[in-house]
């Protein structure tokens, strides 16, 4: 009997431990506070020799898509076209590994801003949401205050600035102000900012809005280096930091539990030659408790409810309008594509009448003034 009670006590204990464990995982499941994920991936360099920047951006795009963020939630900006560039020996491909192992361009890519559209103004407008009303949805960042946003920038940079398309720059102050605008307008819950340029750490020095975590590939005064050239394509394929970042992300799957501390360890100085840096002082949660999939993946949250939900009546399929049964008397026809006689005898288009513009009005006023000055105002009654 004593043995039985002892055994039952042990079973009860194990059961209670299990329950607590479930509650812990359930608690962790709802602890991060975000409901949707967005990604803004920007490559800022033009010209064929900057192939590696496009490959960097596309490899992050590929990882982010693989981990669950859909195309409608990704704003991809590529400043130049490398895949269908005439210098590319294998068109419609962008490789990240030597010997053409991995085509990061893929078959299902949707580039939202491309070519000349990638400018500092468009980038800041996308972040702050101040776009012209006719901008299509795929080009907008429609985030809310429960969105976790991943922002990835790559290109050529310097101390405090990032070069866009060889013709303009964005400074770290502008970027910090843009993030503050986003915070004021409640456009993000948490933001992860990754930058892979030379002296990248200078870009996150000026941030002052809460809930931002930043990673950079090199410190101020250091250059980020590229990884490896491919002799068949003729250019360097990837930058070191993003190459090792891609390798790290290939091991992540949507249910993995890796956290930010593992991300900070990517590409130590021995592999990267530059020293990657990170900044977490603005972030409220402890980086060790932040999952990689909080930013790179799109984990769907499920809410369990016990209430009954009333559905509406089943929708009846509408007929395509009443088909008129009587025979139409009117016969339609195609138009002559090149009606020569009609064209030759075409009346010239009636130009719309515009009121005379300022120059003509001013000229006539001057003439009238000179006339009346010379000959006196008493001649006015003869005119009218």
């Amino acid at each position, binding site marked *: 009997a004593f043995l039985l009670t002892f055994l039952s006590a042990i079973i009860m204990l194990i059961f209670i431990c299990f329950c607590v464990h479930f509650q812990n995982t359930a608690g962790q499941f709802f602890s991060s506070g975000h409901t949707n994920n967005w990604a803004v991936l920007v490559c800022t360099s*033009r*010209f064929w020799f900057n192939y590696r920047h496009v490959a960097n951006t596309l490899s992050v795009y590929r990882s982010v898509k693989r981990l669950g963020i859909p195309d409608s939630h990704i704003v991809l900006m590529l400043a130049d*076209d490398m*895949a*269908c560039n005439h210098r590319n020996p*294998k*068109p*419609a*491909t962008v490789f990240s590994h030597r010997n053409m192992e991995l085509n990061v*361009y*893929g*078959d*299902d*890519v*949707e*580039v*939202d801003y*491309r*070519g*000349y*559209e990638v400018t500092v103004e468009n980038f800041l407008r996308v972040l702050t949401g101040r776009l*012209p009303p*006719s*901008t*299509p*949805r*795929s*080009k907008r960042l429609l985030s809310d205050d429960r969105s976790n946003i991943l922002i990835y920038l790559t290109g050529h940079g310097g101390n405090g600035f990032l070069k866009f*398309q*060889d*013709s303009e720059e964005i400074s770290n102050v502008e970027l910090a102000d843009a993030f503050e605008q986003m915070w004021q307008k409640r456009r993000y819950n948490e933001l992860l900012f990754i930058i892979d340029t030379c002296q990248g750490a200078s870009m996150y020095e000026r941030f002052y809005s809460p809930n931002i975590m930043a990673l950079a590939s090199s410190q101020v005064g250091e250059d980020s280096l590229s990884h490896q050239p491919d002799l068949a394509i003729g250019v360097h394929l990837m930058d070191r930091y993003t190459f090792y970042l891609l390798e790290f992300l290939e091991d992540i799957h949507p249910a993995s539990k890796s956290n930010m501390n593992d991300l900070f360890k990517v590409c130590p100085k021995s592999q990267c030659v530059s020293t990657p840096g990170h900044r977490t002082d603005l972030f409220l949660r402890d980086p060790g408790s932040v999952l990689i999939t909080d930013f790179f993946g799109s984990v769907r949250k499920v809410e369990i409810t016990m209430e009954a939900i009333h559905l509406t009546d089943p929708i009846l*399929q*509408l*007929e*395509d*309008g009443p*088909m008129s049964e009587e*025979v*139409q008397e*009117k*016969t*339609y*026809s*195609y*138009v*002559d*594509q*090149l*009606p*020569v006689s009609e*064209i*030759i005898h*075409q009346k010239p*288009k009636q130009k719309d009448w515009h009121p005379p513009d300022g120059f003509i009005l001013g000229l006539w006023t001057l003439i009238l003034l000179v006339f009346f000055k010379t000959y006196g105002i008493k001649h006015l009654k003869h005119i009218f």
Partner: protein
Amino acid sequence: TLVARSLLANDFQEELVIRPLHSGDIYASFQFRTLWETDFMRENKVSHYRLFPKSLGQVISKFSVRELHISFTQGYWRTMQWGQPFLPSPPGAELWVWFQDSVTDVDAAWKELTNVLSGIFCASLNFIDSTNTVQPSASFKPLGIVNETDHRFLRYATLPREIVCTENLTPWKKLLPCGSKAGLAVLLKSEKLFHSSFFSQTVHIRPVCQDRECKTTSWELRQTLNVVFDLHTSGQGKREWSLFKMFSRTLTEACPLASSSKIYIDVTDNPQEEYFELSPATPLLSQAVVLGDRRTFSVYDLTQQLFKSVSDLLPAGSMLRPLLHAERYVAGYGLQTGEIHTVMYNNHPFRSFPVLLLDSVPWYLRLYIHTLTVTSKGKDNTPSYIHYQPSKDRMRPHLLEMLVQLPPHSVTEVTVQFERALLKWTEYTPDPNHGFYVGSSVISALVPSSVAMDTNITQEQPLFSSFFPCKEESSYFVRVYTEPLLVNLPTPDFSMPYNVICLTCTVVAVGYGSLYNLLTRSFQIEEPNPRLAKKIANFIRRIRGVPLLS
């Protein structure tokens, strides 16, 4: 009967035409056509879409579009080597739209439409604005059913610089009812399609007649994809091609939503199977008159059997010489002036025919229209109709439309001189030394045909021969695009502002700094620091209370 009628009203057909060209290339043309009898313009919006893609249906109803034609092309169609294409398209992106008569502000609708299309097709169509849009007065007549044509509702724009890549093909494939999962669209893989000499994807929406009587109309959506593969450079040593070699995919099944799914192989040059043989062989042959020529095709119906390959292909016979083709180039030297030459060739031995030339030149090339000359065979050839709309700086491009009669077997040359403008420094692109593009000229013509064309508008015609409506039997309509031009504009040195600022600031600093120093600096005599031994001696003396050394 109502059910049967609504089924007939929504129809999808797909077709692939493969034609070996005489230069050794293979021309493959995919056509996907969706017909739908519905009214987009009525008040209660259409909400149940089956085969017709919803995104395009919403575009049609929201912007009151009557006809929409958009094409994305990479490469230039070489008419002399390849003959005439089934559907012509200029390099880059081209968009022309006829709006309904009920639209009050056509320009605003056009601007919004280009933005929406840029989102649908992932292209930079939002760069289409008033500086590259024109309103042709005689070209681009509607290809569909219409009551009357008022050219105020027509807009035309090209973006010759637009790149076509996988990101444009992906949304285009998603518009098809079966997507890229079944049917002929399975073959569309970007790695092979873009490794070609010519690639073009288009979308055409227009209202068409449903049957021969033409009492009712339905909306037709045609998606076409034309590609020319150069089998020599893609490593095909043996003259043997198959669908797998061309597209790196094989056909699995016909699209279940398609009412017909056919492949046509052009065997006109191979009547007795002496030059190439098809595998699997088919006895089904059909003849069609297309582009003024009667061609024989082997037909494979995908719902019954699958097509695989052709072996031992040799170019043979003589190609029907294209009767009309055109070239365009810039002459002159230097960065100030130049001359645009458009050359049109009429290769018909005894017939002359009129052509309509449409030229749209950006405002930064200032055309001198008084230097416009049209010469044929060395003599002046006055056009019977000229419409010229001058450009407005930064607002409107030049528009020149001319109806020219081309004499038989002749070369007609149109020349006009221009001057290059200096742009404001913010208007230059990030790579201005690449040059600036001038869109292709469009030449529309009714070319006399040696074979009687079919004027019946029936559904049984294959899709590739029934695109342009045919009104008379003795001629067919053709549209030829010239090359786009690339001109260099005088480009400033963009680092000069930085250089000027550095130099000026240095000069000012050195000059003003020296002057300031001279005026305000005063000199004072200072005791030198005593040496260490003297310091220690003074320290001991201070302790002793004895006077210090000097």
